[in-house]
């Protein structure tokens, strides 16, 4: 294969300088973190940049810590860092478990959460889970900071909605209370998942479901939720269990499934049902 085309690497001292560089280089420059997606696309000549701005040069972007009612995960934290973070394991174990299964051990050692979200690969595991967990992205630009929901950040396949000068600095994930149950499951045959499904249930004292959030990824340009599915997933646990197939159908409808080389729309629809049943059983402790 061809070597990578020439580029220069720049090391900003702080976020302000990174924003200046992004603005200055425009379309010829981009942020570079772990490179686990960017360099592959550049190697295949799908993307060309003359300037890579190494955001790892900015200190402190890899923190994972508790802040008020949130778990803050810095955009520069690698999948491995998040997987092994004691505070993440304690406060948001579903995130650690998901990260422990992203791609492979080499990608986890270098790839970052921020890079993953900004690259907006439709098969992203973190994006799907963070959508269900209602994570909020923090973006810092020349004129200040703004907060974006996952829906707002992920604009399309391989497309984020950050402005030219904006840097994703981290994600705030609301800390689950004692009545919240979360699960992330995926099905995978090749190197990327064919389906990811995240389920977050808020239970009441009797074990019934007060509120549900559910997201599926890999089967649409960006991960998606379905209002219809989420209302079917709320209510007395026994009746929700009766409605799982209906909820899965609503999710599949929302995703507008297509036949592609990963599988037929019918097959993906079937998998959504299988993973939703498994996730619900896990959240409701029905696995014995």
């Amino acid at each position: 294969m061809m070597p990578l085309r020439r580029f220069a690497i720049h090391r900003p001292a702080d976020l302000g300088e990174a924003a200046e560089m992004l603005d200055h280089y425009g379309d010829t420059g981009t942020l570079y973190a772990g490179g686990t997606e960017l360099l592959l696309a550049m190697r295949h000549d799908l993307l060309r940049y003359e300037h890579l701005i190494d955001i790892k040069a900015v200190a402190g972007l890899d923190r994972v810590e508790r802040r008020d009612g949130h778990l803050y995960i810095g955009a520069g934290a690698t999948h491995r860092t998040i997987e092994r973070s004691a505070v993440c394991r304690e406060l948001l174990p579903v995130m650690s478990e998901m990260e422990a299964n992203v791609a492979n051990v080499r990608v986890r050692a270098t790839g970052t959460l921020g890079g993953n979200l900004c690259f907006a690969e439709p098969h992203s595991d973190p994006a799907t889970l963070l959508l269900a967990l209602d994570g909020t992205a923090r973006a810092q630009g020349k004129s200040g900071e703004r907060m974006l929901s996952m829906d707002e950040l992920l604009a399309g396949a391989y497309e984020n909605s950050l402005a030219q000068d904006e840097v994703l600095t981290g994600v705030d994930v609301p800390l689950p209370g004692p009545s919240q149950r979360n699960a992330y499951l995926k099905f995978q045959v090749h190197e990327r998942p064919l389906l990811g499904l995240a389920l977050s249930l808020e239970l009441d004292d009797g074990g019934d479901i007060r509120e549900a959030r559910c997201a599926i990824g890999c089967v649409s340009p960006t991960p998606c939720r379905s209002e219809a599915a989420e209302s079917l997933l709320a209510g007395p646990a026994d009746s929700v269990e009766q409605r799982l197939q209906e909820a899965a159908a609503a999710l599949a409808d929302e995703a507008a499934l297509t036949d592609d080389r990963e599988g037929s729309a019918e097959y993906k629809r079937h998998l959504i049902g299988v993973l939703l049943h498994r996730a619900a059983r896990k959240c409701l402790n029905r696995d014995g």
Partner: protein
Amino acid sequence: MSKDRPALVELRFELNGKDVAVECEPQQTLSEVLRGRLNLTGAKISCEVQVCGACTVLVDALPVSSCTYLAYEAQGRSVTTIEGLEGRDRTLHPIQQCFIDEFAFQCGFCTPGMILSAKALLDDNPDPTDDEIIHHMDGNLCRCTGYVPILKAIRKAAAVMKEARG
């Protein structure tokens, strides 16, 4: 488009226990520098999309895909390749020996990556379960052996290394 050549990187890092200095261009990968400049051809190039693991080397004890890892990232770090595993007395590393003993390779193309990935595991988790070995090795592909001998070799290497520690 700018015609300027990007500045060369004066790269200094520890390679298999020895300090090395080499000039490279920012877009050069670690495998290009290792194979093309430093004549260490143990890291093999195959998929070039971080899927197969044939190019695995360790950087600060963590496995990376050297085919798509910029050499620039190795600045000031410690890099281990398959060439650096044998002992001072030229004896093979226990993982290398166990791969031979258990017939854990045929063509050998994936083997350097397999062994380095296994080393990263055993240095971090000296007594892994089979599930942990399989989970860790999931991103290293082999087209010959069927994986079972590889699992056996790593299991055996863990026991040998444990015994050597006493």
